């Protein structure tokens, strides 16, 4: 039983408020990823849960018990640091058992736990080595092993993969996923990498400048972002944003005119609020949602600038007036720099945002 609940959590460093009242509910056994650009307060939130930073306001509860004033070691958490934070002068085995040994845990139990962790992470052969003699991936495993040995109710990860090379990162990502399934405990994972967030999370918490922007399952955030920030942050390559203006609202739809594409118009059915005619808006279209000319509701002409061919797909960086668009094309080997072509937008595959960035549904 270890749900984690953050209620109006505030963090101030002196006069600087860096977390502005975060409300996050994490269910027992859930894998939640905090994602956001560097400096948005992800680590600060995680460190408050761990007890490494004081909580300036609000409450954090673990397993239903408010732990604001509970010692870090008594919160039932274990943390994996970005820099691994292994004890440099101890062997892998000593690193794993240090905490238990220091607390007079029975020797047999310590050995059992260390052996189990080493087995899970396949580091049995490294037990006599020192951190200096390990590769980045192996160090990461030891750091995770040290967390497992504590048998915590909640695992906290602070950008654990950011010091690894791309290939290893993918491999460790899978292992962390596997670990979550195997242990079935709550995991809170911090990263600035939206791919990690999308692939690992049961639910993602998107943060920006100390505010929770949206909480939801990865594909929900992808399909139905609450605002322009989330729309732009989730998904790779990024969503395209085209300036537009409302020219008509009628029959539960708004007609918008794109600003830079020769007066092209698009009729977008809306369910909720209707913006005023003349209001400036932004149309968001993901690279994978540009269709071939004629297939969508409106076509816009573009000129290919650079094409990246990844094999299965290609990304064409195209100029359309003053706006640069990223267009995904299935293995379009024929597209080359300088090509003129048309892409089509489907209203149901385009998102509308007001000038402040809020979603218009």
């Amino acid at each position, binding site marked *: 039983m270890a749900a984690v609940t953050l209620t109006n959590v505030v963090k101030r460093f002196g006069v600087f408020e860096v977390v502005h009242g975060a409300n996050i509910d994490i269910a027992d056994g859930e894998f939640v990823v905090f994602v956001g650009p560097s400096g948005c307060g992800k680590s600060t939130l995680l460190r408050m849960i761990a007890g490494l930073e004081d909580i300036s306001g609000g409450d954090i509860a673990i397993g239903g018990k408010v732990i604001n004033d509970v010692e*870090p070691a008594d919160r039932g958490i274990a943390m994996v640091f970005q820099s691994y934070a292994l004890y440099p002068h101890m062997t892998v085995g000593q690193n794993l058992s240090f905490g238990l040994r220091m607390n007079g845990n029975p020797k047999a139990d310590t050995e059992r736990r260390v052996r189990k962790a080493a087995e899970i992470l396949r580091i049995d052969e490294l037990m006599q080595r020192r951190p200096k003699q390990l590769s980045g991936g192996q160090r990461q495993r030891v750091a995770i092993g040290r967390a497992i040995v504590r048998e915590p109710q909640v695992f906290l990860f602070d950008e654990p993969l950011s010091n690894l090379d791309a290939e290893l990162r993918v491999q460790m990502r899978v292992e962390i996923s596997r670990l979550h399934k195997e242990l079935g405990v709550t995991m809170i994972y911090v990263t600035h990498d939206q791919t990690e967030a999308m692939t690992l999370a049961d639910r993602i918490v998107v943060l920006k400048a100390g505010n929770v922007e949206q909480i939801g399952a990865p594909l929900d955030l992808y399909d139905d972002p609450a605002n322009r920030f989330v729309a732009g942050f989730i998904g790779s390559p990024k969503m395209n944003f085209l300036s537009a203006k409302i020219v008509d609202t009628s029959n539960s739809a708004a007609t918008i005119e794109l600003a830079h594409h020769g007066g092209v118009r698009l009729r977008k059915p809306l369910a909720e609020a209707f913006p005023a005619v003349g209001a400036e808006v932004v149309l968001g279209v993901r690279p994978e949602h540009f269709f071939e000319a004629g297939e969508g509701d409106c076509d816009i002409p573009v000129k290919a600038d650079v094409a990246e061919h990844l094999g299965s797909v290609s990304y064409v960086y195209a100029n359309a007036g003053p706006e640069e668009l990223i267009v995904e094309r299935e293995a379009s080997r024929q597209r080359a720099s300088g090509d003129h072509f048309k892409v089509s937008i489907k209203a149901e595959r385009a998102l509308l945002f007001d000038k402040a960035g809020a979603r218009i549904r």
Partner: protein
Amino acid sequence: MRTQNATAYRFLTPYLLIFAIFWIWPIVSSFMISFQATRTVPWRFAPAFNWGRLIGDPAFYNALTNTLLILVIQVPVMIALAIIMAVLLNSPLLKARGLYRFAFFAPVVVGEVAYSAVFRLMFSLDFGIVNKLLNSVGIPKIDWFSNVTPAMALIMIAVTWRWAGYNAIIILAGLQSIPEDVYEAATLDRVSRVKQFFHITLPLLKPVIVFCAVLSIIGTMQLFTEPFLITERGGPGGGTETLGLLLYRQGFRSLNFGYASAVAYTMAGLAIAITLVQLWLMREPK
């Protein structure tokens, strides 16, 4: 590549010349001199003359004992003190850190004569502040300069005062190179501050502490200023005479260069031997 090296050496020649004349040659020469009888003119080669005398010289054993005694007591006490000072300096609670850092380092740059004079005043029998303070807590005043044990203690106190801060600054640099998150990990592992110090800080400081210990041992082996200036040339009655003083007395008072050279080589040999033992004891487990 060859010609580049040659050019480099040509640029280095002036330095190498000076180095050879003022460093290498005296080192080699004094080694030769230690095998010569230098009280006769001309000097003659007599290997047993100085070295033989050294082995049987009570003054040498007195100086050796004093030096080693100071070394064995003063160096560990000073290093321990330096570690404590460094930990305090590193505390986030400390205000005006720069000021303390300067204060700790200041004794090293104070002139030796001035510092010795102040110590003589502070420890003087009737007017010294130290005896006044001792008196005020009911301890009878101590005659620091006329008795061997207080005089030795005084030397150790003075040397410690002068060098503890210097070592603390070096150890502080070592402390600051230990990443903060290692301590955070230990905190999450429920390891108390005190245990963190003994199980994390000290082991990780080991290389720095060994470095400080080696420097201090070499320095103490050559100890000269304090017994020369504070206890007036190793007084009372040779009670604080060190190898450095013996060397000075033989070489520059009695002009017995051969014997002084033998003492000098003994000092250097001992320093090297102790340092090697030290490094071996503190070696990294493989």
